[in-house]
């Protein structure tokens, strides 16, 4: 037995989960467990209470709503990847999920777990930031909707407070036929990426870009939108995009540094991967017309 001792709780409803959070100290919530279980096995974390939320059916599922798509926090990555709705309306999310772990981890791992854990290299929260997703949290005072711009509070730190849990993530899909691109660099397929990038593009009938999103992840402590470079893309023709403002934006980043990867290398990767993501977005926009 490797994990340290803890009290195990398995609520069946959101109300039971809320009550447990309100009454217990030093708690960890167990979602898909694909990050928390290694941390328990390695004893990096030692909660007094482990709350397993895998048996709360209301927290899982993909729903089309009047103004978008809502994905329950406990929806498995494998189910999101297999969903025709997601492939059709949030293709960037499906594209990125192919890079998340392996079939044995996607069968357990959840979008909510990844968005609450917030590893800087994680693809799912990055895609949420690219799509301006909204995070629906439940706490003692009821529901609270948190914009993607406010969700990321730093390394491994979401905007949830100790008494709240994530119920769902809401997306507003981009226009039908929009372009999307994704690129990441990892040492092996399925490993945590060293860095990655995503791009979304909408253009009018003449090919003039009307809306753009650019994002890098695994570069700084949280996913980073490049708003100036996005603005510079609007009005350009999709067939002849100037990459210089994008590369300038990449050079201005403040990357993390560790024993394996220098800040300079991450900065270099950010520019290279952004270029690949933008080119892929242009191609996919053409193919989806």
């Amino acid at each position, binding site marked *: *037995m490797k994990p340290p001792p*803890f009290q*195990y709780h398995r609520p069946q409803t959101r109300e039971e989960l809320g009550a447990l959070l309100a009454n217990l100290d030093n708690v960890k919530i*167990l979602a898909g*467990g694909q990050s928390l*279980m*290694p941390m328990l096995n390695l004893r990096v974390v030692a909660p007094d209470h482990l709350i397993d939320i895998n048996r709360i059916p209301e927290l899982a599922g993909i729903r089309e709503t009047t103004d978008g798509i809502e994905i329950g926090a406990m929806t498995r990555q494998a189910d999101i990847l297999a969903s025709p709705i997601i492939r059709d309306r949030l293709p960037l999310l499906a594209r990125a999920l192919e890079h998340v772990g392996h079939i*044995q981890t996607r069968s*357990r791992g959840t979008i909510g777990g990844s968005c609450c854990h917030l590893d800087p290299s994680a693809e799912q929260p990055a895609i949420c930031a690219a799509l301006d997703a909204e995070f629906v949290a439940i706490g003692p005072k009821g529901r609270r909707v948190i914009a993607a711009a406010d969700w990321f509070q730093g390394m491994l730190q979401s905007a949830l407070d100790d008494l709240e849990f994530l119920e769902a993530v809401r997306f507003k899909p981009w226009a039908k036929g929009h372009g999307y691109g994704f690129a990441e660099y990892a040492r092996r397929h399925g490993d945590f990426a060293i860095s990655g990038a995503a791009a979304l593009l909408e253009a009018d009938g003449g090919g003039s870009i009307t809306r753009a999103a650019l994002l890098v992840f695994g570069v700084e402590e949280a996913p980073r939108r490049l708003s100036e470079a996005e603005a510079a893309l609007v009005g350009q023709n999709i067939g002849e995009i100037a990459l210089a403002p994008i590369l300038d934006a990449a050079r201005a980043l403040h990357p993390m540094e560790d024993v394996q990867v220098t800040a300079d290398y991450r900065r270099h990767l950010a520019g290279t991967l952004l270029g690949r993501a933008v080119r892929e977005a242009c191609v996919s926009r053409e193919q989806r017309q």
Partner: protein
Amino acid sequence: MSERHLSFTLNGERREANADPRMHLADFLRHGLGLTGTHVGCEHGVCGACTVIVDGAPVRSCLMLAVQVDGCTVETVEGLAKGGELSPLQQAFANHHGLQCGFCTPGMLMTLEAFLRVTPSPTEQDVRIAISGNTCRCTGYQGIVEAALTTTAAKGSRP
């Protein structure tokens, strides 16, 4: 910390057992039930040796708690052979030199078993991606990939 009771289906048989909540599924299978076919390598979700099938999906049993399979259907490598006969996938591993030391083999088999059920006609690339979460340190992957593709072909030719 008190043990919890769990009841589940293991390789087609109903099982009742108790487990400490902090025991992961791989240790429970090996030490709790004596089923040592499931191997334990890295215990942090990297090597894939401990892969088992839970409710039809391949999972890393070091990244699940034993108490989480309460009410579930679990399949381990011990359930593949029937009546002393190797399963088609196991036989293909033997025929194609898909194993040498055998340490990664249970994880490879259970990953591919689950994968081939939902992907009956994979390409070589599909198979390589399917086993990308399983590490082999001796034979190499070529024989394993050939075994998977042969099994597919054999299944496809059945009446």
